[in-house]
């Protein structure tokens, strides 16, 4: 629902990083989106393409890597990974006491710049 705001933040950060390094054009933006981040990749791609046109990322491709939700159970101490977007209890022992290690990412990892 707020993918436009996310795309706005994404473009601003990418343009800033590119200029900071002395380059003038962005060809590709690689990002990591956690499965539990609440962001829909298709909607983000649409928003990114709609908003990039008047920027130095006007021809840029957005490459999205989805990161599964993973964590460690504080009760049985086992690690887990799931394709679900949300987790209510440890898939091994049903304990609701666990720590999320990944799956909430909204990170830019790499830019291809010229």
């Amino acid at each position: 629902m707020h993918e436009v705001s996310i795309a706005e933040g994404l473009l601003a950060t990418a343009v800033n990083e590119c200029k900071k390094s002395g380059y003038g054009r962005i060809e590709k933006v690689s990002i990591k989106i956690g499965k539990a981040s609440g962001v829909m990749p298709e909607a983000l791609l649409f928003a990114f393409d709609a908003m990039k046109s008047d920027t130095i990322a006007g021809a840029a491709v957005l490459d999205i890597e989805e990161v599964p939700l993973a964590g460690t159970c504080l009760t049985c101490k086992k690690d887990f990974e799931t394709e679900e977007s949300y987790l209510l209890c440890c898939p091994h022992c049903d304990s609701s006491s666990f720590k999320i290690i990944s799956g909430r990412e909204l990170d830019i990892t790499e830019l291809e710049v010229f």
Partner: protein
Amino acid sequence: MKLKVASKILGANDRLAEENRRIFTENNVYVINLMSSPGAGKTSLLESTIKALNGNLRIGVIEGDITGTDDAARIDRLGVPVVQINTGGACHLDANMIYETLGDLDLKGLDLLFIENVGNLVCPAEFKVGEDLKVMILSLTEGHDKPLKYPLMFQESAALLINKTDLKPYLDVDVEKIRKDALSLNPATKIFEVSCKTGQGIDDWTGWLRTLIS
């Protein structure tokens, strides 16, 4: 060439939220980001809270709505400082919108600032605005399935107010299920059952608020 970066996409919002937070702390204002779906009772809760705490705490309110000033007018009638933000379509408040209003509030004259977010059970939970705490309301008429359908806000909120408890006899809603699911999503969340209509539970809530600020 490939340029490795390690930036948060919402980094700009997070940095501005930190700046808001710094300004609030400097002025000794405790800030609560109040979230819920539309019609759950955010403004009614603020009215009840202001009435209960006025005289003890100096309260201010930032109202966030897509359009209109009805909520700000309700708060204004209680004689507390209020600023209305119209997001013009955006489904949530962000740190920049809050930053822009700070000049309109006398922060030094406040102990507690409520930021009433746009009515929406999804997006407001994603954007920090510089608050000390997130608090959410779920009204009984929304049904007991909401914690598991909209988990992020329940996970992010330090307190959950279950509002409209006066309607319980007329509804097929399982309050225990709301409690159980909310606690399994966020074991640390503090739950209050309230009715802004009858005043039930408001004292417990405002009592807890006072422990945060003293």
